[in-house]
C-alpha cells in the first residue's frame, strides 16, 4: 500500500466512526443476562427433577442434567430454532453448555453433505474446537500453578 493510501485509509477510519450503528451493548447485556439465567433455571429444574423424582444424589444428578440440556440444544439446533434464539440472546445462549452443543451440532449438520467421515467427522469441532484446546491448555496451566504453590505442604 502506498504512503498516500495509508493516509487516506486513516482519514477514512476517522470519517466512518459514528457513521455506523454500534452494537447495542446495554440491550445485548440485558438480554444475555435474562436468557442465560433462564437456560440455567431450566437446567436447575431438570437437576431437581433427577434429585427428587429419580432419587439421584445431588452430586450425580449433574451428569444426566447436562445430557438433557445438550439434547435439548441439539434438537432446537436441528429444527433451526437455536440460531434465531441466539441472535436475540447473544452471550446468554453461547455461554451455557447448550451453546457448546449448538456449536458442535450445527457444524455436524452443515457438513453432512460431505459424508460422515470427511464431512461430519472432520468438521464437527470446527467451531467448538478452540474451546476444547484452550480449555485443556488453561486447565494445565492452572494445575501447574496449584502444584507449585502446594509443593511445600
Amino acid at each position, binding site marked *: *500500500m502506498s504512503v498516500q493510501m495509508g493516509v487516506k485509509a486513516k482519514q*477514512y477510519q476517522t470519517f*466512518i466512526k459514528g457513521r*455506523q450503528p454500534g452494537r447495542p451493548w446495554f440491550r445485548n447485556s440485558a438480554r444475555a443476562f435474562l436468557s442465560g439465567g433462564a437456560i440455567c433455571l431450566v437446567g436447575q429444574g431438570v437437576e431437581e427433577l433427577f434429585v427428587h423424582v429419580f432419587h439421584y444424589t445431588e452430586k450425580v444428578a449433574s451428569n444426566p442434567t447436562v445430557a438433557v440440556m445438550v439434547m435439548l440444544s441439539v434438537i432446537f*439446533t436441528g429444527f433451526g430454532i437455536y440460531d434465531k434464539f441466539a441472535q436475540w440472546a447473544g452471550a446468554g445462549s453461547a455461554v451455557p453448555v447448550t451453546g457448546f452443543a*449448538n456449536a458442535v451440532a*450445527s457444524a455436524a449438520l452443515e457438513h453432512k453433505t460431505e459424508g460422515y467421515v470427511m464431512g461430519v467427522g472432520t468438521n464437527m469441532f470446527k*467451531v467448538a474446537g478452540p474451546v476444547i484446546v484452550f480449555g485443556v491448555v488453561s486447565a494445565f496451566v492452572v494445575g501447574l500453578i496449584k502444584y507449585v504453590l502446594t509443593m511445600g505442604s
Partner: protein
Amino acid sequence: MLIGKQTWAFQNAPRVLATGTAVSQKEGKGPLGKDFDLIYKDPYVGQSSWEKAERKLLEQAEEKAVEKAGVTMEDVSVTISGDLLPQNITSNFAARTEGRPLLGVFSACATSMQAVALASLLVDTKAATYALAAASSHNSTAERVFRYPTEYGAQKPPTAHYTVTGAGAALIGLGATGPVITHATIGKVNDFGVQNPWEMGAAMAPAAVDTIVQHLDDTGRKVSDYDLIITGDLARVGLPIAQELLTQRGIDPAGRFTDCGILLFTPDEPDVFSGGSGPGCCACVTFGHLLRRVAQGELKRILVVATGALLSPISSQQNETIPCIAHAVSFEYRG
C-alpha cells in the same frame, strides 16, 4: 470503444432482450416479490444440498431468460457467470447442465455488472450473437464459506448484511426491444483500511464513489442525467456514507440514489440487518425489478453500480483489510 479512462461506450446498442430471476421465499415476500419470475418456498429448491440449490436457482434463471427472449439455449453464444463459492462451482456446474460456452468471472457481489459489461462488449463487437450474463448467491452456501455453519448461534451486529438467496440472468443481444446498454465503467480496486468483515457497507462505499465519479468524468454526464443511480449492496450503512463522500467530491445525488440491498427487503425486516448482499442481490434487483421499469419507460436512464468486497475467509483471518471494487453499467430506455 474506450472513452476517458475506464469507460466503454457501446456503438451498436446491445440490449437486454430478456431477464430471468429465481429467488427464495424471503426475497419473494419482500417489496419486489412480484417482479421475480420464480419464487421457491423450499430453501433447498428440491435438491439435496445448499450448493445444488444455488445451482438450480442459477439454471432456472438462465433458462427463464432464454425462454422469455423467445430463443433456445442452443442460440446462446457464450455465458458469462459468477458466484461466491470457491472455484465458482455454481456457475461452472450450471454451465455443465446448459452445455453452452462459459466465461466464469468473479468480483464478489459486483459480479453481475462485470458479467453484463463483458457480455455487452462481446455482443457489441459481434464476438457473440446472444450472450447470457448471470450471477447467483445462496444465503446458506455463503454463510458456510464466509461465516459459520447455518444453524450456529452467533449474534450478528447491526452493520451485518444478509446474503441474498437468488439468481438472475440477462440475455444480451442486438434487437429491437429492451433496455439499451450504453456504457460500462470498470472499477479499480479500492482499499480504505476497513478490516471488519461485518462492516462491508463502509468498506465498499469508497469503491462505489470512485467508480461513479470516474463514470461521470469519462462520459461527461451529470447525476441529473440519470433517473436513478443504484448501488449493489452498500445497504443502509454504506449508502449514506457513499452519499456523503460523493457530496464531498461536489456531486449531490440526493433523491436519485438508492441501493439494491435496501430495495429488496422491507425496512422492518429484522433478519437482514443493514440489508441484502451477494452477487444474487444486485442481479435479482437489477434484472427483475429495475430493468423491468426501464423496459416500460418508467425510468429513462439508470446507472447500476454493483459493489463487491474482495475478501476471502483466509485473508480476513490473517487480519488483512478488505479490498473492494465497483463496476457500473448504464441502461437506457429506447422505445
